[in-house]
């Protein structure tokens, strides 16, 4: 386990050695900050109308939920950029043999790499969560719903990075890894859209759709089924990565 953490720490630190992590953090913060302010603006405009309505959506519904939904879509595009280099670059730079000849197992390598990237993504999510928390200075948030949104986004990026890591293990070039994982993630995201056409509902697609589970948790209903979906999702892609890395010694 300790070796896993060593690899994770190294990976986390290495991300900050290149301008990649910094520029992603900066760009995300600017974009989401803008979206956040937009939502706050909308809320102040319609606030007066909401007062008279019964069961009207509150501050959390109007500001937090859309912010986290947007963050989810943006992170779908950003996570593959962070994960594309994980194994791929090691292989290209021939540094993978350092890990392969060290007394560590394949799962140490994969999980270490995974945790390292996840660390950065959790920092990103924490930074996003800070924005609505500032609203506490002048208003009130629905704590439960806020937590549900926070949890949903964390699970979402954990799933994204598992897919990204797998593609990085498979692909021969970082760009291919990035495109591949954006492809898979986008497909899983839109899989649910066929449901808008009546009579064509597919329960399988509905279950597979990552968006559906994300929104379910976001709505505040934390279901064990949705949690299981994410846990299974992450475990599947991590196991596939470990298997693929083990196979590497046989192929070439």
């Amino acid at each position, binding site marked *: 386990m300790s070796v896993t953490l060593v690899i994770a720490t190294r990976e986390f630190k*290495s991300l900050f050695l290149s301008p990649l992590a910094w520029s992603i953090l900066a760009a995300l913060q600017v974009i989401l900050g803008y979206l956040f302010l937009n939502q706050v603006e909308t809320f102040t405009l319609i606030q007066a109308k909401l007062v008279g309505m019964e069961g009207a959506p509150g501050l959390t519904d109007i500001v937090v939920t859309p912010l986290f939904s947007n963050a989810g879509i943006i992170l779908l595009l950003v996570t593959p950029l962070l994960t594309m280099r994980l194994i791929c670059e090691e292989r290209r730079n021939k540094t993978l*043999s350092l890990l392969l*000849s060290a007394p560590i197992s394949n799962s140490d390598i994969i999980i270490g790499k995974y945790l390292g990237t996840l660390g950065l993504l959790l920092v990103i999510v924490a930074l996003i969560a800070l924005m609505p928390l500032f609203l506490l200075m002048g208003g009130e948030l629905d704590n439960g719903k806020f937590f549900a949104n926070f949890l949903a986004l964390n699970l979402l990026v954990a799933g994204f990075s598992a897919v990204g890591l797998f593609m990085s293990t498979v692909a021969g070039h970082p760009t291919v890894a990035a495109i591949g994982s954006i492809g898979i993630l986008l497909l899983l995201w839109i899989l649910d859209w066929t449901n808008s056409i009546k009579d064509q509902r597919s329960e399988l697609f509905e279950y597979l759709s990552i968006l559906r589970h994300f929104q379910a948790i976001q709505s505040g209903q934390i279901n064990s089924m949705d949690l299981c979906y994410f846990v299974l999702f992450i475990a599947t892609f991590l196991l596939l990565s470990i298997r693929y890395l083990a196979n590497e*010694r046989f192929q070439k």
Partner: protein
Amino acid sequence: MANLIEVENLSRYYGKYCVVNNISFTLAKGEVVGFLGPNGAGKTTTMQMLSGNLAPSSGLIKINGFDLLNAPLKAKRSLGYLPDIPSLYKDLTVQEFLHYCAQLQGITKQAIYPIIDKTVERCSLQTVSKRLIANLSKGFQQRVGIAQAILHNPEVIILDEPTVGLDPIQIKEIRALIKELGKDHGIILSTHILPEVQETCSHVQIINNGKIILNESIFELNRTMTQGCLQVITRTPVDNTILLAIPYVTRIEEIAHNRHNIHYSMKGNPTHQIAETIIAKGWGLEEMTPIKKSMEDIFLALTQVES
């Protein structure tokens, strides 16, 4: 003495191509084996298999008594490996990189800094230890690679072309280091520089087309090399006892009728005396050809016969 490396019937195929064909050898403590062969002979593939980077198609590898396939973690614990292209994280400093390697090897926190300092000194990296690996010259990078391989004081050290890209002084230093390490480790190094093998190794293995075609100690090999040889053709039979009495002549073998190979020690050259004796005795000297045997000749002879 227990063998540090045991390799039995090791083979490796890339698709249909057989790169390593059924090789077996052992390595004991205190031995430095030079792995010699032309390009594409299977040197690097063998080393990758020994280091656990490549799975063999068939065969058994034991490192320090542990099977590399069934107990990989235990086996790799006693392994230090320098690949043909050193695995270096170029965006780290030498110090950071070695620290990471030490952690990967499971060296305890208290022990890490003394070990790094010792290794840095051993590989004479003191002047560059705070610099980024990307900014170092090829020679220094190679030395960082060697430092990485010997950092955790492994029983078995595998070095794939360790002196590539080094200047003559550095080569001398690294060879001295390898010799020193060889005293209490088992080392395999691959190279195509023949004098390097003669200078640093205790054993030599020549590999060609995936097969080991020579496996001998340097001592044995040097003995064949410090011996000169003359092929002498005469008209009438010679008297061996008279020729053997000539200084430096060690052995005479008859290869055909009236055709002899006269072996002599390289300490002196008895050619002149042999010729005079044969003429004086009236054996009718017809031809006298020196047969040269340097390591290059052995190498070329062995590799060309095979291919």
